C-alpha cells in the first residue's frame, strides 16, 4: 500500500468564465473580415436622422423612420441607430477611396418577439474603389459565407431592396433540414450615397453588406429564442466556454 505522503492533491480546476456568445461571434467575424483587408471603424449608438437616414438615401417617407419602427430620444433630436450603416457614412466622409471599412455593434429597432429584439447586433462592411461590380460583391459574400459555414454550404442570392444599395440582394443558406435561411443583406452602394459623402460616383463604385449577429448565432448554436442571449442566465452562458 502506498503512503499518503506521496499522494499529490487533486488538480485545482479553476472556474473559467465565458465571452458572451454574441460578442464572441462578432469578434470572430470581425477578425475574419480584417484578414480580408477591412479596417475596423467605430461610431456612436445615438445618432442623428441625417446620418442614420438622410445620408443613406432613406427618404422622409420611408416606413423605417416612423415612430413605430425607430426609437427617438430627447424630443426627436436624436435616435438610437437602427443599423451600423451611419458609421460607414462617417468613415466615408473622413477618408477618401479606395477604402474598406467594417463596423459592428448594437443597433435598435422597435421589435420584441422570439426572433426580434429591440436591441441586437450587426456587422456591416463597405468597400469603395474603382470598377467594383456585383460580380465582386458575390465573390466576397461567397468567401464570407464559406468561412462561416464551410465550403459545402449551398447559398443563393435574391434580389431585395435597401435604399442605400442598388442593386440589392439578400443571401440565403440551405439548412440541413432543406430550408432556405436568410443570413445577410448586401448590394452595390447606391451612387446617391457616394455623392452624399462627396465621392464621385462616376469614378468610384462600392459594395456593402450587413449581417445580424444574433441570426447567425441562433443558426450556429441552435438557439431557438433570441431572448435567451440576454437573460444573463449562467446555465446558458456557461455552455459557451
Amino acid at each position: 500500500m502506498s503512503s499518503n505522503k506521496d499522494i499529490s492533491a487533486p488538480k485545482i480546476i479553476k472556474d473559467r468564465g465565458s465571452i458572451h456568445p454574441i460578442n464572441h461571434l462578432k469578434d470572430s467575424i470581425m477578425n475574419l473580415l480584417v484578414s480580408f483587408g477591412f479596417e475596423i471603424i467605430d461610431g456612436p449608438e445615438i445618432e442623428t436622422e441625417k446620418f442614420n437616414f438622410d445620408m443613406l438615401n432613406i427618404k422622409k417617407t420611408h416606413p423605417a423612420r416612423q415612430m413605430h419602427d425607430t426609437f427617438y430620444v430627447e424630443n426627436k433630436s436624436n435616435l438610437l441607430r437602427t443599423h451600423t450603416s451611419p458609421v460607414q457614412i462617417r468613415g466615408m466622409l473622413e477618408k477618401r477611396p479606395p477604402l474598406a471599412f467594417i463596423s459592428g455593434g448594437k443597433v435598435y429597432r422597435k421589435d420584441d418577439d422570439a426572433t426580434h429584439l429591440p436591441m441586437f447586433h450587426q456587422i456591416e462592411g463597405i468597400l469603395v474603389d474603382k470598377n467594383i461590380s456585383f460580380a465582386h460583391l458575390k465573390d466576397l459574400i461567397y468567401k464570407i459565407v464559406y468561412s462561416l459555414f464551410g465550403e459545402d454550404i449551398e447559398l443563393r442570392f435574391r434580389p431585395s431592396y435597401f435604399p442605400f444599395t442598388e442593386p440589392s440582394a439578400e443571401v440565403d443558406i440551405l439548412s440541413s433540414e432543406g430550408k432556405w435561411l436568410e443570413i445577410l443583406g448586401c448590394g452595390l452602394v447606391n451612387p446617391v450615397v457616394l455623392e452624399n459623402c462627396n465621392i464621385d460616383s462616376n469614378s468610384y463604385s462600392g459594395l456593402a453588406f450587413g449581417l445580424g449577429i444574433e441570426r447567425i448565432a441562433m443558426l450556429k448554436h441552435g438557439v431557438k429564442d433570441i431572448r435567451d442571449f440576454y437573460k444573463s442566465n449562467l446555465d446558458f452562458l456557461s455552455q459557451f466556454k
Partner: protein
Amino acid sequence: MKIAYRHLVEYINENPSIEEISDCLFQLGHEHEIEENIFNMEFTPNRGDCLSINGLLRDLSVFYNVNTNQEIYNDKLNKLEIDFENLSQDICPQISFLKLEIENIPNKYKDYLNDYFKDLNLNKNNFFTDISNYVSYENGQPTHCYDANKIDGKIVFKELHANQEFETLLEKKINLSDKNHVFLLNDKVINLAGVVGGKETSCSIDTKTVLVECAFFKPEAIIGKSVKYDIQSEASYKFERFVDPECQEKTIRRFIKIVEEHTNIKDVSLITYKYKKNNVTKIPVNTNVINQIIGTNISQNEYLTYLSKLGFIVNDENIEVPSYRSDIETQNDLAEEIARVIGYDNIERNEINIPKAKLSNIYDIENKLRFFLLDHGFYEVINSPFVGTGSSNSICVDNPLDSNKKFLRSNLTQSLLENLLFNERRQKDSIKLFEISDIYNIKDNKVNVSRKLAVIASGRAGHNYRDFSKKISKKYLDSLFRESLPSENFEFKVLSRDSLNTKVKNEIISCEVDISNFSTDVLSYSEISKPPESFIEYSPISDLPYSIRDLSFSVKDFTELDKFKKYILEFKHDLLKEVFIFDYFNNEKNAEIKIGFRFVFQSSDSTITETQVNNIIDVIIKHIEEIDGITIPGLN
C-alpha cells in the same frame, strides 16, 4: 398579398406549372410561400407596382408570353356633374369620380368574380364593393365606393388639422388626430383618404347607384396611418407603396365593364381631375455602364430586349420608364432590372482582392480585459439599455416599447445587480459577471458617451476545493485583480442588500470603471484561456430547481484513488448537471484522505424527485463500495 396560381396562369400562354412560376418569382426577387395553390407574396417596399395580378404578370412577361389586356368599357362617357373641391392637389394630383346606376343587383356573379372570392377564401360585401376589390386585385388600383344616394352635398379633399371622430365602414370608431388627408362631406369626414371609407356613406347590398372614387395619392400622405389607427387596409398598403399614376381611367373603365357584364346599366357618367402632368423618367442607353455595374458582358440588343419585355419603351438613345415603375431612376436601377432577369445566381463571381488594411487595435485593451476576466471565472453579459429610472442627465426615449422603461441606463452596475439576483434565485452560489458597454447621458446639453467596464461578484470564490469555502469579498477581488493587473485601479465596493428582495446574505462586490482609465499595461496580460474556436451546439436550459447532494469519502488505500476520482468526476447522467470536488484533506498522521464531492442534479421536464436523485447516488455508492479502502463515513 395572396395571389392564386390559376388567376395568374390563365394569362400566360406557356401554361407553366406552379413550381416553374415560383422559381421565376424568386429569381425576380418576389419572396413567397405557396399554400394550396395560392402564392402568399411578400414584396419589397419599392415594388408597389407588383401588388396585383397584372403587376406580377408584367414582371413575369420577361420569361413568358403574357396577355393582360382585360376588356374595358370603351364607349364615350357623359361628364359627371359633381360638387368637388381638391384643397391638397399636390398630394392628390389626379382623381376620377364615376357615377353609375344599375337596374338590378345581380344575384349571381360571373365565374371569374366568383372564383376570386372562392379561391382566396374572401368574404363578399356588396356588388359594387366586391367589384372594387376585384379590380384592385386585378390591376393594383384601389377604388372607393360611396352609396351615391348618401352623398348630398359638396365633397372636399384636404389635409385636416383637427381632431374628429370617424366611424369606418368596418364599424370601427377612430379618433383622427394631428394631420390627416380626408374627404369631407358637409365638413364631416366620410373617408380617411387611401386607407378606409366611412360607414355613413358606404354601399350596402341594396345600393343601386354608386359613386366610385379613383385617385392617385402620394405615399407620404398615407404612410403610417393604418398602423396609427390600427386598421387593416389593403388600399393603404398599395398607396403607401405607390400606385400607377396613369391607370385611373383604365381602372374606372374596367369597373364599368365588369358591372356591365353582370347587369344593365341605367346611367353612367365620369369626371376626371388631373392637376399635374406625370413626369416621364428617361435614362440614356449605356450598356457599358450596365455591364460595369453587374460585372457581365451582355450586348446592347439583349439589354434593350429585356427592358422592352418589362414594359420599358426603348430606342437607341433613351429608355423611357413606364409610369408604374416609380422605383427606376438611375443606371443602377436599370442594372438591377437586368441582374434580376439574368438571375443573381447566374452572375459569375469575379475575384476581389482587398489591400491589407492597417491593423486596428481599438478593441485590444477591451479584449485583454475580457480574457483576464474569463481566466478568473467571470461571465460576460449583455444587457438592454432601457431602464425605468433616470436622473436629470439621463437620456429619455420619446417612444419606448415599454413606458416603464423610458430611460437609457446611466450605469452598468444596476443591470449587473439584477443579473446577479436573477442567478441567485436560480440557486447559483458562485456568481461572477461583467459587462463592457457604452453609457450615454446629457452633459452640457449634449449627448455624452463613455465606455465602461463593470464587474459584479458574490458567493463562493469558486467550485473547487480550494475556493469552495472562501466567500467573495472586496479583499479577495482586490488581491485577485491586483496580482494580474497591478497598475490598474478597480476600486471595488460592497453593495448593500438592504433594499433587495433576497434572503441570500453573501456580500455583493462590484466596480465600474471607465475603459479610458486603463493603461496600456493591460496589454501585457498573458491570457490563460481563449474562447472556443468551434461552435458549440447549445442545449436548452431548464427553469426547474436543482437538487444538490454531497458525498464525503474516506480513502485509506491510495492505490485506487485516481481511478475512484476519475469514476466520479466523469460519471454521466442526463440529470447530473455538475460534479466537482468541494473538500479535500490529506491527513498524513492518520494515513487517510478525506474527499468530498458535490453533485448538482436538474431535470429538464419536471421537478427532480428525491427518488430520482437517490437512484443515481445509489449507483455511484454501489460502485465505490466495491473498491477496497474507500468508505463513506456514517453510511451503514
